[in-house]
């Protein structure tokens, strides 16, 4: 077991910071979107994995939504909300996001077989990433309690500097 852990530690130390992998997901209209296209604009972004049955996820995205006008006064960035709902709840997730006004301010993606979630090594939602303009993961956080969004804002400010 010790050798095994050592091999993993060696592997981790030998490689660079995580990035956004190339995975195909859906947009609100059901069209295929490659996650690499998120990087085209070169602006930092918050990527938040959520699902309709995850209450803390919804609270986190709502908190970001409420704070967004003030945050955008200070830093230029975008928010990508990735629904991990299965096809059972896919249509509902789209209606849900629209019914909360997220569609206007967020880039909405739908990862119905959790390919993007797996590729980013997200085991449970909510899980949020801050990605810099070059596509590197500079911050990530799992679970949400009110107030966690303050840490998120600090991370996005740091990465925009």
């Amino acid at each position, binding site marked *: 077991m010790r050798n095994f852990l050592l091999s993993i530690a060696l592997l981790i130390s030998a490689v660079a910071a995580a990035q956004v992998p190339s995975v195909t997901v859906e947009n609100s209209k059901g069209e295929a979107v490659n996650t690499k296209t998120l990087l085209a604009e070169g602006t930092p972004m918050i990527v938040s994995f959520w699902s309709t049955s995850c209450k803390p996820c919804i609270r986190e995205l709502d908190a970001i939504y409420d704070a967004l006008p003030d945050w955008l006064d200070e830093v230029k960035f975008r928010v990508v909300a990735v629904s991990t709902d299965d096809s059972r709840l896919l249509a509902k997730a789209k209606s849900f996001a629209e019914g909360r006004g997220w569609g206007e301010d967020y880039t909405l993606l739908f990862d119905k077989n959790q390919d993007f979630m797996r590729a980013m090594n997200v085991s449970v939602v909510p899980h949020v990433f801050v990605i810099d303009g070059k596509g590197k993961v500079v911050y990530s956080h799992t679970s949400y*309690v009110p107030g966690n969004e303050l840490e998120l804002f600090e991370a996005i400010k740091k990465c925009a500097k």
Partner: protein
Amino acid sequence: MKRLLIIVAFVATAVSAVAQDKGYLTGSFESNDHIYVQDEKNRFIPDDDRFGTNNYLKLDYYNGNFSAGMQMEGYYPALIGYPHELKKFAVSNMYVNWKDEDFQITAGTFYDQFGSGLLFRSWEDRLLGLNNTIMGARFAYNWDDKVSFKALWGMPRLGMEFSDTQVRGADLSVSLSNIIGLDDVVLSVEGSVLNKFEKLGIDAQEAGGSPNSVGYSGRVNFDWNGLFVKGEYVDLGKKLVALQQKRGNAQLVELGYNGRGLGVTLTGRRLEWMGQTITSRSQSAANLISYVPAMSTQYTYMLTTLHPYNPQVGDESSYTFNSGEMGGQLDAFYNFRRGTKLGGKRGMKVHANFSTYYTLAQEGSYTPGNLLFRDFSFDVEKQWTKEFKMVLLYSMQEYNPTYGNFKTTWLSNIVVADLLYKWTPTFSTRLELQYLTTKEDKKDWMAALLEVNFAPHWSIWGSDMYNHGSTKMHYYNIGVSYTKGRTRLAAGYGRYKDGFICSGGVCRQIPQYTGANFSITTSF
């Protein structure tokens, strides 16, 4: 363990061989552990080892278009209620993958799904103990955003091993709107075919069962300015159910409108003999090769989840010999904007759902046309002040305790208040108050939960669900969690009710138990 080291060495070699600019490694680890305690009131006597632990380690290496990875799982032994075939250690996933803008080729294990998954879906759900990843090969090609095609072959995993069942499938999606060059309209037609080869027993062969079955599906997607229609038809081909030939088929329609703060979705679905397993030799809840979920609201509040809907997919291995079901649901979400009369200063969100399902009026059903499940729910969410947020939910659930066998249904009315108060920017409390009233089953229930959160790291909670109508039993639970970055540790103790754990509309039965639980999830 030796085998594991060889595999790690293999991955390490592959990494160093391909790593021209190093690439990067990411991974995750999850461990869920229970210690069981004898509880006479709950009629729970644990096994001798009094312990259960489910563990998952996943590693992925990325370098440009290349990626490789693996997942290991260990159950020493599995947590109570998990499928019995989960035991000891296995490398569950191992793959190499190449993906550029147009091509993708994968060797080893992979997950995929055709359409909504009614014909074929390979996925992982750790809550269900399900990981039916396919060991084989997959090829995918996209021609711009006009045509996409994929083909796959392999053996699905059941429990700790890959089965000897083989699946071969292909899926084609053609975007007519992109070919014609329409800007505002999305119109695509899609089709899939799936061949399953399964070795059959002598009984099944004599009854005329064939080891090969071929299913197909046809789909259409349309979207115009937020107005959408989706249709799917699935034919599973002939299958043997209780030594009789049946033709599995399903129809699914989704239509609605999303825009201007309004989201409405109407779903209709009919299932007939749609149960599709990896092998007929296993009764495991994880023995699935397609995804036929319950199309109803997935609740999260304690009392709303006492009787989750479990669809009648049409299978002899269901609770009764039932040919299928038919029904639908309507969901409506609306956001009263800030500054409007009802929205007030901070807006108000409302949601309503109605879903209803019946047994099929077909040969093979016990009693055709019986109500299986009906639910009407309404919830309103209002941020009153900067500090105080309130959610109120009402749900009227009617379900058939005999899974459609008899006409009798049980009705319950449930109300929930969920109150969140932020005392400071990082200190908050959340209180849930719930009540369920019914004349049937175990009569009335009440429940409460209090959660105290100290951002950014700590959360503690306590809850109690009490059946005061009949059994006078308390199901209590206390817990604490600590989160730092992408690592979360949680510990709790409680008495848990038997019932169904449902995730993504798929359910597995769990027994009652009492004990302590620990969990760690981390990623890197």
